[in-house]
């Protein structure tokens, strides 16, 4: 019969061996030699069957305790060895994190400032319940001028350096629209008031220098109902300018002016600070003209089939390219249409910079 001394000797022997095992394979061999079918501890366990109950009462717990302790010691050592092995592997695995990656398409693509600014304008007016309307670039003389109360031969027509097409068989010559205002007429002809629209689009004048290009972009606004007046026009424009330029306050100055298609007509100046070619809106003491507006002229309403004694409303127009230049600081309008990659990458907007009122117009 195995006495307790033998058991303790065996425990000391195996424990020492486990502690000395320096790899998982050696540890496993030890485990088999102790706890395997023919292992030393298993051999001790086999002696229990031949013992008297009294002997077993003493030896049983001792041998079983030995078995459990050895198993636990193997487990502990195994965990230690695994940890050491992992540490060794991790220590040897090193990547150069400064190796550059491809930036990917989202980082490379750019939205043109004109599109971005149109989206910004759209976001603002969508909150005021406006819809977006549009019309053709190639217009008839009627929609571009006559319907808008530009009488034939009137000098006001000459303020627009118009691009013409060749006359057709009836002697009528179409024009490239000189402003987005023809869409006012087209919309009023189609839709019943109340009308609240903005009209962004391409416009054309035969003119070219640093601040004029033969093609440019305007956004027109039109409100027609039975009550809208200049007080509300002021509110709409002031709210728009403040929101668009993302400043706390914009000081405006409405000056009487002349446009054939509005009466009364006004130009709007904003207070700003100029230093060199840079213009800051929302501060300063200079004035800068920014847009034209007015109450839709009774003749224009009549031309669109509306009775000016019942319906009334206001309209305004401003240059999108110019708004972009003022907000984002491009110095030269001509570069907008040159598609110079360096310019597009510098002044363009990231694809997911989507102007919203909930997320902010610009990031």
């Amino acid at each position, binding site marked *: 019969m195995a006495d307790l001394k033998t058991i303790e000797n065996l425990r000391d022997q195996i424990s020492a061996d486990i502690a000395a095992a320096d790899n998982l394979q050696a540890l496993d061999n030890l485990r088999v030699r102790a706890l395997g079918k023919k292992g030393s501890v298993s051999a001790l366990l086999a002696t229990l069957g031949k013992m008297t109950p009294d002997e077993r009462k003493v030896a049983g717990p001792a041998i079983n305790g030995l078995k459990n302790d050895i198993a636990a010691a193997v487990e502990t050592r195994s965990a230690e060895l695994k940890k050491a092995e992992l540490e060794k592997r991790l220590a040897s695995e090193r990547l150069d994190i400064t190796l550059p*990656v491809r930036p990917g*398409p989202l980082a490379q693509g750019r939205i*043109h400032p004109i599109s971005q600014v149109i989206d910004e304008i759209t976001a603002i007016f969508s909150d005021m319940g406006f819809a977006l309307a549009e019309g053709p670039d190639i217009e008839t003389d009627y929609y571009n001028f006559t319907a808008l109360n530009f009488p034939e031969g009137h000098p006001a027509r000459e303020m627009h350096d118009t691009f013409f097409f060749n006359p057709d068989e009836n002697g009528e010559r179409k024009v490239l629209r000189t402003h987005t205002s023809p869409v006012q007429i087209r919309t009023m002809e189609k839709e019943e008031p109340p009308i609240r629209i903005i009209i962004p689009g391409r416009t054309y004048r035969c003119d070219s220098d640093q601040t004029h290009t033969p093609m440019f972009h305007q956004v027109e606004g039109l409100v027609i109902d039975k009550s809208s007046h*200049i007080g509300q026009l002021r509110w709409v424009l002031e709210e728009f300018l403040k929101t668009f330029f993302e400043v706390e306050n914009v000081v405006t100055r409405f*000056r009487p002016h002349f446009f054939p298609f509005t*009466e009364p007509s006004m130009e709007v100046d904003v207070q700003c600070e100029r230093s060199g070619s840079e213009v800051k809106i929302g501060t300063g003491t200079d004035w800068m003209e920014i847009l034209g507006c007015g109450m839709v*002229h009774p003749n224009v309403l009549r031309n669109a089939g509306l009775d000016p004694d019942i319906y009334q409303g206001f309209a305004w127009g401003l240059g999108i390219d110019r708004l972009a230049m003022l907000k984002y600081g491009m110095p030269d309008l001509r570069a907008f249409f040159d*598609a110079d990659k360096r310019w*597009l990458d510098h002044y363009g907007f990231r694809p997911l910079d*989507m102007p919203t009122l909930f997320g902010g117009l610009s990031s």
Partner: protein
Amino acid sequence: MKFTIDWLKEHLETEASVEQIVDTLTMTGTEVEAVEDQGEALAAFTIARVISAEKHPNADRLKVCMVDTGKGEPVKVVCGAPNAKTGMKGVFAPAGTYIPGTDFTLQKGVIRGEESNGMLCSERELMISDEHDGIIELPEDAPLGEKYAEYAGLNSVVIEVELTPNRGDCTGVFGLARELAAAGVGDLKDGSVAPVPATAGPTPVPIELRFGPDEPQACRMFAGRLIKNVRNGPSPEWLQARLRAIGLRPINALADITNYISYDRGRPLHVYDADKLTGTVHARMGVTGEKFDGLDDKPHEVDETMCVIADDNGVLGLGGILGGVSTGCTEETTNVLIECAWFDPMVIAATGRKTGIVSDARYRFERTVDPAFVKPGLELASKMVRDICGGEPCEPAIAGNIDIEEKVIDFPLSEIKRLTGLSISAPEARAVLKLLGFWSAGSSDTIKVAVPSWRSDVAIKADLVEEVMRIVGLDKVPVEPLERLAGVAKKMLTPIQNRRRIARRALAARGMDEAVTWSFVSEQQARKFGGGNGALKLANPIASDLTDMRPSLLPGLLGAAQRNANRSFTDLALFEVGQVFADDTPEGQRSFASGIRTGTAGLLGSGRHWQSSAGAVDIFDVKADMAALLNALGIDMDKTQLVAEPADWAHPGRGGRVQLGPKNILGWFGELHPLRLTELDLTGPVVAFEIDLEALPNPRKKQTRAKPALNLSDLMPLSRDFAFIVDTDVPAGALLKAARSAHKNLVSEVSLFDVFEGKSLGEGKKSMAIEVTLQPRDKTLTDEEIEAVSARIIAAVEKATGGELRR
């Protein structure tokens, strides 16, 4: 239009500051362009005497002058003016003075070995005229050491205003004074003109209007007056100073008087040397071929659309625009005919445009001159001529007459509030109108308002609203929020607007830069890309390469590629979303989204990279762009037809079109034709696509926004690979389609993972390998069932492609 504060005060009794005057003009609708304090700009220029002027020892054309400036030691000045001489008085600027006429600051210097500490100035250097033949010579009594500006009356504040085309009345200082008076800045002085009695009997110069019934009545009234025995010479100093201050060069008394009245009253006049006239002076339409030499020293030709003034010898000048040299007044003129006429604004504007002549008379007549001021204008001119040049006036001769019909507008005062939101009392509104020269009558809510003769621009109620509002002040209009319409706002964008917006973001998200290029291209480019329609050709293009409305977005993008390539940027991914033109109707304008990739600008980036260098772009780069764009717009490219018939701009074997049917083409893609590359001076490869955003079908109206139930199987999918050997011209699409439809219930996905051509396969053959995923639906498939499906797939592909399974 320029005027000085002093001049303004001739007509306006006011103590207002310059700032107040400028602000009031601005806020009542007269835009102030510039305010210049001449005294300030010329403060450093003083009156000096030339003590001695000796020839420069080292230069024939220069003189060395000792100048007495009135204080301190004499100053040595080197001067190049031929008229510099000992004893003269002139205008001196010390070193350090900014010289406005030449835009530089004068420095001390040594000129050819002689010291120079200042300058004797010409009129041009002071910017008071164009005179630069010599330095200013002042009379002996000019006060030494005094500021020249003060002495010459150039100390005025000059205001330049920009007038809108509707305000003829503001082309004269008197009209501006009336505006200011109405706005409370002072009191308007009496501007009435007393007739000048005729002392020389009836006029010997007959005046006529000769317009046929079919011709425009271009001159409706022509008043002329002969004044005998005048002495023409320099006009008085006050008149010269006044003209000089606003940038006009004094000529002689008669000319200066006409210029003065033009600016003072907005009433252009013309003076003829009566001794050079022959027969009847008359206004008529011109005849092609007629010519005259203008007072602008240029020859001019006239035609049937222009109104001329003529005598029996022919055309004298263009009525209301420009007089002629042949009958012009000179210092020798003794008998003068003054013309005060009224010309039709439309005719003047048209003639002005056609001839390009810019004159003070045209500026006023095309804005409409007060038709009631023809006779008073003539009297005013007669008075000034008599006062300044002496002489005996004949009786005026007047041809024609303008029926000045008084415009009376029924004006409900409620219109002011209706259109502006401004609350203003009836008496206040009427007081404003009265100050502007309108008469009102009636005591009900609707009053009658008579429009003064000088306000041709006022015709309707809304015009009167503007008059009241602008004088009361726009800042008095209360700001009021625009009320929301009931309900949540509808979608702001139409489907096509939304498509354009999505297309932009989708293509930018594919790493492409959005370009905005001209809507017009050259005719050659237009033809190459399907355009060249004569109706889309501009009659007056701004440049020879911007003549035709673009039929495609590609020419603009390719032009951009070329410009970028010239700056050595050859890897480009560019797109544009915008309009193209098939014809000149609104329907002929369509929205396209098109893009190009050049060099190595693929989806993941361009150029070399340690992980994977980008190869040359090919049509599959743009096919992927198209697929992504269509997907973003809700269309699955797998469900469209791909036809290997590319657009004309593409390589015939490397490109195709995407369509839903032969009549519903969504777009094209391909490699740019080598000839187009050569024409554009581009080195390849360039691949491109265009999508017709308007051709895309509108999504069907759905009953519900809910998506169909998600049908997930618990059974594991399994996949099998097959390779087929087919003829090289068999399209992959045919093979994939056959495999997909071999067993619709079980085949859930087919992907092509290898395409291979090689000698081992034989000439004209290729191998295509596919992975087919099978998704069991209600039970695990047995080996036999899998075998059966595989056999069906093989049979279907072999049948569709004429190929065979590669074993």
